[in-house]
């Protein structure tokens, strides 16, 4: 089936010297695809002093790691990284390249694809091989599932968000070969990262939270938005958002749930003032119980959750927060008396 010569590639990443979960998740998926195709998995990892991370890529499923470990690779540098990866890709001719939908991946993927003159599918929610070994890159669209293929050009390139594929079982007995990547010489540097500033993330992390409260454009205003945030705080829940809310500027991209944002698997999901846009809803399919609050009884969200409440969230949410606070203070008093 398909092409039995050329490898499946993963662009691995290191953030502050550590490989993020998404790189291992896509290595696991690359392993599944490669075994069906009868080819090897190769990862490329660029950083500085990151030799100790290589075994992790082997244990997640890589057979070969192209390792660039040099001061030039310490931080993501657009031109240096693009040049190194494209040169090695031209050398190895991967048939598939998987890239995590991280900030680096989202910039690198289109640069690599355009330089190689090939296709690129954004933020896939599944990747399967058809009978001819062609990669079906699935994304949500029009309320259904759309498969995108790149029938002629190679490599076939896709980005994938964290949490789309499970973390593979890490087999510490697996090993492979390391091929060094040297920093490119003599390229024109026109864009340079001078400084990278990491801040401590605020609030409960979305990816692992047992309760998620997500808000959408139905909040109506920043004031309405803060009410939804207060509900999240009251429930000690992680706070999520939809793309329209991000576009409004009420919150940042880090809180966005869905195809191009984060995948969440809470026990309880509460969607407030959001229409149920498919690109958002695919990020929550793993939730146990889902509740939606929206003033439009025809909102598509009501077809995709377990419980629906038709109310204006700007009235319902403050009233709900008040009830919860009362309940909590009551419980506190009772406990005190006992």
């Amino acid at each position: 089936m398909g092409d039995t010569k050329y490898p499946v590639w993963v662009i691995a990443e290191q953030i502050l010297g550590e490989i993020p979960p998404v790189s291992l998740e896509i290595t696991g998926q690359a392993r599944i695809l490669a075994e069906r195709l009868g080819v090897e998995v190769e990862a490329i990892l660029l950083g500085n002093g990151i030799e100790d991370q290589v075994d992790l890529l082997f244990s997640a499923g890589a057979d070969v790691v192209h390792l660039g470990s040099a001061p030039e690779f310490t931080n993501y540098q657009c031109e240096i990284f693009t040049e190194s990866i494209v040169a090695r890709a031209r050398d190895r001719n991967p048939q598939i390249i998987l890239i995590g939908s991280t900030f680096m991946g989202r910039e690198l993927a289109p640069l690599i694809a355009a330089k190689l003159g090939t296709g690129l599918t954004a933020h896939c929610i599944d990747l399967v091989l058809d009978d001819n070994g062609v990669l079906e890159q699935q994304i949500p669209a029009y309320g259904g599932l759309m498969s995108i293929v790149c029938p002629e050009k190679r490599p076939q390139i896709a980005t994938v968000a964290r949490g789309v594929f499970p973390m593979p079982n890490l087999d510490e007995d697996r090993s492979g070969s390391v091929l060094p990547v040297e920093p490119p010489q003599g390229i024109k540097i026109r864009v340079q990262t001078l400084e990278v500033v990491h801040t401590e993330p605020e609030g409960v992390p979305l990816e692992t939270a047992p309760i998620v409260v997500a808000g959408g454009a139905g909040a109506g205003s920043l004031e309405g938005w803060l009410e939804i945030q207060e509900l999240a705080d009251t429930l000690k829940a992680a706070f999520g958002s939809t793309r329209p809310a991000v576009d409004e500027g009420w919150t940042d991209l880090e809180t966005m749930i869905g195809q191009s944002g984060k995948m969440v698997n809470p026990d309880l999901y509460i969607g407030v003032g959001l229409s149920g846009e498919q690109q958002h809803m695919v990020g929550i399919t793993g939730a146990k119980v889902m509740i939606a609050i929206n003033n439009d009884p025809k909102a598509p969200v009501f077809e995709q959750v377990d419980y629906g409440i038709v109310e204006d969230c700007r009235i319902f949410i403050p009233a709900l927060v008040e009830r919860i606070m009362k309940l909590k203070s009551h419980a506190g008093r009772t406990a005190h008396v006992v």
Partner: protein
Amino acid sequence: MLSIVVCVKAVPEPKAAEDLKIDPVTKAIPRHDIPLEINPLDRNALEAALHFKEQAGASITVISMGPPPAGDIVKECLALGSDEGILLSDPAFAGADALATAYTLAKAIEKLGEVDLVLCGRASSDGATEWVGPELSVFLDFPVVTMVREFIQFNGSSWQVKADIENGYRLVQVELPAIFTVTQDLNSPRTLSFSGIIQSRKKEITTWGLKDLALPANTVGLAGSPTIVSKLEYVESKRECEIIEGSLDEKLDQMIGKLVEAGAV
């Protein structure tokens, strides 16, 4: 004076986009005239260009690729303060993926002559890819910075910007000419003013097709696109929704009940 190109995309209005769904019975996507609007993040890109124009003087050309109705959003950009508006429209351009779109836009930008700055929104609200800006940078051989949230230093030929990364930002120095894709945090886009509409009445938009760009037909549109849609399947919802009825108080009671059941309170 800076010569700025802003790339804008006509996208379906969010409410209209909700209706664009596969019919569960016929499996077809309903076809009707969809009201279009400027892709929200492209407004931030245009606002940045208008800001540079007001600060230091600049000429702003807005370019959009799309069917003839997309001309309306190019006109709207003129009313917002752009100097020129170009619509890339030709039946041959239809069905373009990100790569073919970026290629066509690049050829149009080359036709404009010297350009210092190309601004795009971070992503489009309909396709939800973020590829056109960076791919354009490859075809134009310009450096690119994606997800720019702040222009720190924007004089001369070497600029500094802050761009988003996971839980933080990077400070990036770039030599012009360059491409930036911008986020919603960059600014608050202005809305249409009456005087803007009046002033732009006399302005005409320019439409360029395949011949104007002197491109072979197999490099644009569907023919020039490496990716194609192979399947579109209807997906059944796995959940059955119980609508909680009653007065506001009763709904609140029930909601509290669900929260208790789930162990949330």
